[in-house]
């Protein structure tokens, strides 16, 4: 959209000017400040209480490391724009490790640029790296669905209407897994609970998110969570409609402390500092990196005051089970909301199962559709 373009162009123009003045000698010492230059690319603003903020907090941890220079660019669209940004970070800033963090950057953009720069490492968040893709590309992600499952447990105890709501951006596998996990967590408390999902179709569209939240409240949902880039609007609107809220991406408790039950947060600092340490030491990074609560890739917000004792007990018990490994959210017998069997009796998909990353269904009890 024009909105994102304007700032980008403004920034790139000013970057160009700064670069032109720096060529006289400043550029060299600036690069020599660290043997490793790491580039972070965000699809939105760095302080959005959400997806981008979570990554930027990880980048801040890298910035604090010895011998590393961090460069960042915000509001880069999932289009040709990101290819230009990556190439300028490589050619102009000398970055050799890139973190293009938005889902849509992976295919085709990273896959297209990477082969041309074999000495540069591209680490993408959420992509599904597989054999045959460029060797200098890696993908990492956290099992945040487990966090949404724990959100669901808190929600299951808090709901009085037996209906919970989910404001979702786009029907991609990670979002679907989050919706399903949120409902299944709540159903672990009470199997009667249903979850209404509303898709806004955009990662960040404030008015639509507010409308979707209001529509959920109108439909009787009394605990609401979301998967959009900046959850601030959803959280504030839901709290103003007297609904409980479960956070996502980052800790949003200060927006409505009394209404905030808990939240599924990223903890990218662990991942980024680890990858940078390996790169500095010359060690290889796996092409496919995944982790959950146990590995410190994700964490839960501290439980809010609105949680009952029973909720706390079940929450902590389940969290311990997840950390000890082998926990499965998708466990048979389970049908999707169109009546098709997705897991027969005795079949289960653990959090580490790659099959979950191509999820294309909503489970029974979710009111919503993937298209």
């Amino acid at each position, binding site marked *: 959209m*024009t*909105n*994102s373009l*304007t*700032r980008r*162009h*403004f920034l790139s123009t000013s970057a160009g000017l700064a670069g032109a003045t720096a060529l006289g000698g400043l550029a060299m010492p600036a690069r020599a400040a660290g043997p490793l230059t790491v580039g972070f690319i965000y699809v*939105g*603003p760095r*302080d*959005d*209480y959400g997806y981008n903020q979570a990554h930027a907090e990880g980048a801040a941890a890298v910035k604090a490391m010895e011998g590393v220079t961090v460069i960042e660019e915000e*509001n880069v669209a999932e289009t040709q724009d990101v290819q230009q940004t990556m190439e300028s970070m490589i050619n102009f800033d000398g970055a050799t490790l890139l973190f293009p963090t938005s889902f849509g950057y992976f295919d085709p953009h990273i896959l297209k640029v990477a082969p041309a720069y074999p000495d540069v490492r591209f680490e993408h968040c959420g992509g599904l790296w597989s054999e045959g893709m460029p060797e200098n590309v890696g993908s990492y992600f956290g099992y945040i669905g487990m966090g949404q499952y724990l959100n669901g447990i808190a929600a299951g105890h808090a709901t*009085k*209407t037996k209906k919970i709501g989910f404001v979702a951006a786009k029907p991609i596998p990670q979002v679907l897994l989050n919706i399903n996990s949120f409902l299944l967590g709540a159903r672990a408390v009470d199997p009667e609970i249903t979850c*209404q*999902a*509303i*898709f*806004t*179709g*955009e990662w*960040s*569209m*404030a*008015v*639509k*998110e*507010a*409308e*979707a939240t*209001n*529509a*959920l*409240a*109108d*439909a*009787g949902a*009394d605990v609401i969570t979301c998967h959009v880039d*900046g959850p*601030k*609007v959803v959280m*504030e*609107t839901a709290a*103003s*409609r*007297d609904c409980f809220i479960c956070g996502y991406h980052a800790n949003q408790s200060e*927006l409505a402390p009394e209404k905030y039950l808990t939240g599924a947060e990223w903890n990218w600092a662990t991942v980024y500092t680890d990858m940078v340490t390996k790169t500095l030491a010359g060690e290889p990074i796996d092409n496919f990196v995944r982790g959950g609560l146990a590995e410190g890739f994700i964490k839960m917000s501290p439980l809010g005051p609105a949680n009952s004792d029973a909720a706390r007990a079940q929450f902590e018990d389940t969290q311990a089970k997840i950390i000890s490994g082998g926990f499965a959210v998708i466990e048979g017998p389970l049908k999707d909301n169109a009546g098709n069997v997705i897991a027969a009796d005795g079949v289960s998909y653990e959090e580490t199962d790659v099959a979950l990353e191509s999820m294309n269904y909503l489970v029974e009890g979710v*009111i*919503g*559709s993937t*298209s």
Partner: protein
Amino acid sequence: MNGDIGLWAVPIAMLGGAIRVSTPFLFVSLGEVITERSGRINLGLEGTLVFGAMAGYALAYMTGSAWIGVLAAALAGAVFGLVHGLLCSLPKVNDIAIGIALMLLGTGLAFFFGKPFIQPVAPDLPAINLGWWSDLPQVQAALRVNVLFIFGAVLAVGLAWMLKRTRIGLTLRVVGDSSDAARALGIQPARVRILATAFGGALAGIGGAYLSLFYPGSWNEGISSGQGLIAVALVIFARWSPINCFFAALLFGAAGALGPALQSVGVTTGYYLFYAAPFVLTLAVLILSSSKSGALTGAPRELSITK
């Protein structure tokens, strides 16, 4: 906290959506009516709206008063309008091109200065509860009406009256219909247009403040989903009438609420289609209201699109 109201949720949500979402449309289009009646088009109102949203939020946060935020947004908007008006008064300057430039400038500046205000929580504008008579929380929520909406409705009537019955209105209309006639009457068209554009900018700024200070009620870079641009189109099919602008804005608000409302009652397939409703509506209304004679009825004759 609620009763199950089934399919009634859709009309109630659309009513609520119409009231909640329409206010920015209303303010931008009212402002643009005045600007266009004077014979200029200001396409930059999208940028003014975004800048107003940022300025309003920032000032409200810093002073603790949402009303100071609204005032700041109006002032900032007036400055943008003034710049547009002044630049367009230079010879051989195209108002559409200047508008596009100011749209980009407004959003760019808003993003630049708005950085530190994405996280803080600013005070909200007050709302009046007109749904006290109903037991249904859905109806109560839908009829939580913001004071700016009411102000906008009154303003629409006031502007219509002003255009029709007052000397200022006559001056505006003369300037908009014929620069030569205006000059013959001793009016300076450029001055009138500059003031009209500044007024339009101020209203667009207030529209922006509504976005960031009431609904959705926070400042971020995705706050506007093109309301400023749609509102300019809205003026054309409101036929340059402030009263029509009010209804057109309501219609657009309702159309925007259709997608989420249908999903909430279980009509879940094809939501991308429902989200296109406001734009389909724009096309439909423009086609239906197109005139065979080729002339746009009610259009100011000095407007660059009608010349």
